[in-house]
């Protein structure tokens, strides 16, 4: 704790003299992906004001970061697994100074030093989660929904929701056909596209801003959802169940990265250290329902959170689970083409 205070002081001292205006941290994050309380506490403790802006897809985040590259608009962003490696390889990221990061050792050894960023030179894991099936059991009759394949069932016509996320939607298509969700084979991708076009008449809407909302609003009954969103919906809508599909769940890890032109990397480091504190990580996981990679934090969680299968899947739930990986720009273009065709098709 002392060390931490010292590091904090040092950081403040180092940067405090360089500018006189109030310190600001521009955090670029998914919508509803950080409790307000965390931001408030960070502001109170450090005096650094956090400006929280949001995106709803990795593609939008990446495009905006490139667009605002020169103006050094963002100090911290939270891309998913495969975008970490993409951005790292394209030289868009600033190396993270590990000496300024407190609490890196708290992280689950299974989730650090991954292929996407060997030795975590550019990224620090924030949360991990899964994309599975949401089923409104109150509105569904007949056979229970247990697999992605079931979405194609006629009885759900006009009642299906998909996330507004290219990779995830194709992941589902590919898995239903028995392929890897990370396929780079253009033929398989096209096949998945064909399969997904059959689903389109059932699809009511795409939503990645808050995938729980169309279920809560009663507009859709079945479809994709992120586990955290399912947990957040539990309270108001107990009938909405989170189901691990037979073909396997989509798993992902979101990490903090610092854009290479960040104006305030000191504050970014400070913020990462702040989030790595077990009590803060625990608070985040409890509030927004995703799984924290922070091991001491996991021990601090109340039982009902730690044992919530939606947030923290069992080994059995993770059978067939597939983590999203970087597939390279070439394959990404193929996906992008079919994605647009899919979304604009009638």
């Amino acid at each position, binding site marked *: 704790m002392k060390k931490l205070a010292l590091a904090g002081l040092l950081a403040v001292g180092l940067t405090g003299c360089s500018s006189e205006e109030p310190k600001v941290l*521009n955090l670029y994050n998914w919508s509803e992906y950080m409790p307000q309380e965390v931001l408030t506490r960070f502001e109170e403790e450090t005096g650094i004001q956090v400006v929280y802006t949001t995106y709803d897809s990795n593609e939008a985040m990446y495009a905006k970061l490139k667009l605002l590259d*020169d103006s050094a608009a963002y100090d911290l962003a939270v891309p998913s697994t495969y975008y970490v490696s993409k951005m790292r390889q394209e030289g868009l990221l600033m190396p993270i100074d590990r000496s300024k990061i407190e609490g890196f050792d708290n992280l689950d050894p299974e989730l650090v030093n991954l292929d996407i960023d060997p030795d975590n030179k550019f990224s620090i894991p924030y949360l991990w989660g899964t994309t599975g099936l949401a089923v409104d059991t109150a509105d569904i009759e007949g056979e229970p929904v247990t697999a992605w394949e079931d979405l194609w069932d006629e009885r759900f016509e006009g009642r299906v929701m998909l996330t507004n996320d290219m990779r995830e939607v194709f992941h589902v298509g590919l898995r239903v056909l028995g392929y890897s969700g990370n396929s780079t084979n253009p033929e398989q991708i096209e096949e998945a596209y064909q399969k997904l076009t059959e689903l389109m008449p059932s699809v009511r809407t795409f939503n990645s801003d808050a995938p729980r909302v169309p279920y809560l609003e009663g507009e859709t009954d079945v479809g994709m959802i992120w586990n955290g969103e399912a947990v957040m919906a539990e309270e108001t809508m107990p009938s909405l169940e989170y189901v691990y599909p037979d073909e396997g769940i989509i798993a992902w890890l979101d990490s903090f990265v610092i854009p290479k032109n960040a104006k305030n990397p000191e504050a970014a480091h400070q913020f990462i250290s702040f989030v790595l504190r077990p009590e803060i990580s625990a608070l985040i996981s409890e509030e927004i329902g995703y799984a924290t990679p922070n091991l001491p934090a996991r021990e601090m969680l109340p039982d009902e959170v730690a044992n919530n299968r939606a947030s923290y899947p069992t080994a059995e739930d993770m059978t067939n689970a597939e983590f999203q990986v970087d597939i390279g720009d070439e394959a990404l273009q193929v996906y992008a083409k079919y994605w647009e065709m899919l979304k604009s098709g009638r």
Partner: protein
Amino acid sequence: MTRWLPRVYLVLVYLMLYVPIGVLVVFSFNDSRSGYTWGGLSLRWYQSLFHNNAMVEAMWNSLWLALSAATVSTIIGALTALALHRYRFRAKKVLNGMLFVVMMSPEIVLAISLLALFLLVGIQLGYLSLLLAHVTFCLPFVVITVMARLSGFDESLPEAARDLGASDFTMTRTVLIPVIMPALLAGWLLGFTLSLDDVVVSTFVSGPSYEILPLRIYSMVRVGLKPEVNALGTLLLVFSLVMLMLSQWILIRSKR
């Protein structure tokens, strides 16, 4: 029958226009979280609105942007109108045409063209880029308002001033400005509202360093039904109603 049919029709169309707004206002005082059921009278959404720091800051940013954009566009717009009215110069038609094009072109076209320009020239996306963009799309509206006023204006007055030895600048200041004052105010108010309402252009030319209200609202609205949006919408409605009445009052008073 022919007497009441048109009136019933008018009433129906007005109902269509006002029911959604009415619902919004009523539900902004709804105690329930849901946007669909009534849970009693409450001001809690107004409270939570003002406790949201990011929201309050976006509000101030937006107000400041609208104030400055309206002011700058009124100044430039008034000068443009005066130039078009008084001076004979080549390519006057081109100038007129360009203003017309700005007014008619879809906002999205304006938005991407300005984004391309700002990136090329290296203007950071933030307050400055927003200001330049907002002034540009407000400009034609101010010019038109002022031109309308000038067209009904007695030409002998400025001539007399010139004969008495006033410079162009003095003449403009002492004779023309007072005449076009109501139009300036009306144009300013129009610019203010346009700026405060703009989503399309701002989506492209803003950066995180300067968050404005419409974009905040946009991200809130996309996430789902938020009672705070009702409260905010009601406040904006009252605000623009006051502004509109003000501008009408100015215009009507000036006609007397």
